[in-house]
């Protein structure tokens, strides 16, 4: 057990290192450097030279990368090229903001999906099942930004004027109502898959022999679903949830952009356009770490809720 955990952690570190190498190479392929990107049209040769000196961009590529890697090993991702502030100070609040969105979206989407999926499975082929099936298909087919704009139009700027259309108040928790639209959008984005998965799994479980046995033994239908149905799909559910959460860490970019939300996604878009390498690296590595950790945790949780996997692990 400890050995397999150790191997997974080492693999994760290797993956992160490869990611950092890949990102560094990719940013070098982009035309222009940070000095050029910062000054834009105002890049007179004199200002460009002065800024390059100031940002240490005159060093060789290998030297720049090794300098950054050395910093990372001592847990210091350096300073932003765009404004000289420490990267940690810059993206710390952004990570918090994005995580608030992701966690809230998950807190809404997971129970909702489980509920809708279960009801649809129990009342299979009924009106609710048909309706929810149609709705999930339609929502799954809509790109996030269409969903976001439709919600804005519906609830904020067009039909009704209930909610703020953008999330510009900082700190973000100071005006919770501004989180409603982005969280709803994200929750709606990830729910369809979870609903369909929950429905299919529960149907499968409800058709299995041991459920038939329980029913024949006189256990009430409600108890059958709650006591035997749902617990048996948890392992599978955790995997799907993990996949969706991992997706959210990256997919949040579009939604943040639409709502002018000060999160990781908008910071990443900004950093790429500034060629702000330390910030790009830090954000990408954070997202990669998030992916890896969520998957690790999901595997762990699956094992805990699944007796067979638990037995294998021991």
């Amino acid at each position, binding site marked *: 057990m400890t050995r397999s955990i150790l191997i997974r952690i080492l693999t994760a570190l290797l993956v992160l290192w490869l990611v950092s190498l890949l990102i560094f190479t990719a940013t070098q392929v982009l035309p222009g450097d940070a000095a050029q990107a910062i000054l834009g049209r105002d890049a007179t040769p004199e200002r460009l030279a*002065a800024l390059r000196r100031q940002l240490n961009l005159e060093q060789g590529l290998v030297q720049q990368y090794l300098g950054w890697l050395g910093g990372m090993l001592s847990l210091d991702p350096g300073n932003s090229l765009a404004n000289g502030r420490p990267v940690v100070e810059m993206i710390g609040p952004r990570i918090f903001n994005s995580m608030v969105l992701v966690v809230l979206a998950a807190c809404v989407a997971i129970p909702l999906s489980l509920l809708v999926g279960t009801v649809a499975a129990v009342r299979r082929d009924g009106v609710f099942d048909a309706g929810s099936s149609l709705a999930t298909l339609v929502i799954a087919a809509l790109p996030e930004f269409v969903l976001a704009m439709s919600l804005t139009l519906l609830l904020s700027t067009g039909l009704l004027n209930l909610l703020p259309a953008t999330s*510009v108040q900082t700190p973000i928790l100071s005006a919770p109502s501004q989180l409603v639209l982005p969280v709803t959008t994200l929750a709606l984005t990830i729910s369809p898959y979870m609903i369909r998965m929950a429905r299919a799994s529960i149907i499968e479980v409800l058709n299995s022999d041991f459920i038939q046995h329980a029913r024949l033994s006189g256990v009430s239908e409600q108890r059958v679903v709650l006591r035997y149905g749902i617990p048996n799909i948890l392992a599978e559910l955790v995997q799907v949830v993990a996949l969706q959460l991992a997706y959210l860490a990256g997919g949040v970019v579009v939604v943040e952009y639409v709502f002018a939300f000060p999160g990781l996604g908008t910071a990443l878009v900004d950093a790429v356009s500034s060629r702000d390498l330390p910030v790009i690296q830090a954000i990408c590595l954070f997202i990669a770490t998030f992916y890896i950790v969520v998957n690790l945790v999901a595997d762990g949780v699956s094992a805990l809720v699944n007796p067979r996997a638990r037995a294998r692990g021991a």
Partner: protein
Amino acid sequence: MSINTLTRRTFLATTAAGLILPYASAGSRAQGSEPRRGGRLRVGLNGGSARDSLDAKGALTEADIARQNNLYDMLLHLSPDYVIEPGLAETVEPSEDASEWTIHLRSGVEFHNGKSLTARDVAHTFAYITDPAAPGAAASRFTELDRDAIEVVDDLTLRLRFKQPFAVLRDLLADSGTAAVRVVPEDYDPAAPVGTGPFVYDSFEPGVRSLYRANRNYWREGQPYVDELELINFTDDAGRVNALLSGQIDALAGLPANQARLIDAHPQFKLINSETGAWNPFTMRVDEGPFADVRVRTAMKLLVNRQQMVDQVLAGYGAVANDLFARYDPGYASHLPQREVDIEQARFLLREAGAEGLTAEIVTSPVSIGLVPSAEALVGQAALAGVNLSVRQVEPSTFFSNHFLSSPLSQTYWGGRNYLIQIADSMLPTAPYNETHWSNERWLAIVTEAYATGDDALRAEMVTEAQEIEYELGGYINWGFYNKLDAVSSRVEGIVPDRTGISLTSYAFRRAWLSS
């Protein structure tokens, strides 16, 4: 407007002024009542990133200008109808040949930290923005300034010496663009920015927002009216408009033209429609490639349907231009005939030049209003004269590092500044952004003389003459001047149309108040 007889151009200008009047009178009607004090004005700015800066040396974008125009003051400034007015300087007077200038400061002005403004601060300001080790945006405009000979005559008087006659100093000091001269104290530290402006720094998150408190010790009597100013960044047009519609902000800078009619018709919002001299032309390189032949350049200018451009690209919010710029310059060559579409003549000139069926690529990027749409429109218009154009759109950083200043056919964007300061940026041999690679000896002789001419009327004549040369030979296709469109909530008063091309009355929020 013009000393010439009534031409189509002056007629257009007069009618355009007539169009502005209803807005102007709406503003003055409101101004008739006593401005209400208090409240927080929340403004949505166009753009914003981690690069945002409060450093008086480092304005790079319009969002930077918005912040800095409220923190700092300039020595002179432009009124909304483009007249130079005193700012921190009461007078700015040239010597006979305009190579030496004396600046006399207003007395009793204090910085936000309570220190009095003196000539030493202004001397430091010039030294700061032209520092060769870390030059600011204005540095390239003041290369002729003798940095070692800035003389503090007394507490309120400063003398500047230039290596060459420099008749444009007043224009430069009044320009509130990225290369503005914003006055900072001797012990200036950009990390804790102190100025004399109407608002005092409170907090700043680059790319997100900044907050300011009213400077209750401001030298302009009675201003500012609001207690707090909050400037919020939006990188997305739709987000900014949505924030206004849902009441999260009170004003926004840069309204997309396709939203203007919606806002104008809405009872809760006001459209601020500013006629400006801002221009976003096509640039043809005159030194090499297909456009080195003046006949090809003239053909290109003749195949442009300018009215169609204004209607399609600007949704009608703009005015047709005649390839020239600086329309509010006293020397603007308004007597030259307006170029109209002439496909026959364009084809003839191309044939003459051996350039029939010319093929070229327009390199463009969405860095300012209407660049990409106008490039697309030009493709269709050029096809009528048998010219095969194609559009190559690249992202901004790529545009500036790989294409700007080098592509044979591209685009640029400029505010509506007076002629002699515009050419210092884009046409003189020393200009940092000579997109068309312009060089012409006769023209250079005229403008060089103009720089050495202190007499305003005489200088204006020289500008006219220079523009006549440019009209025939220049590499710019300037098809229109765009209106700057902004929107405010109906409770915001004091924001009026402004000719400078800088949004929301040049972001002078000292003028604004909230009616309820």
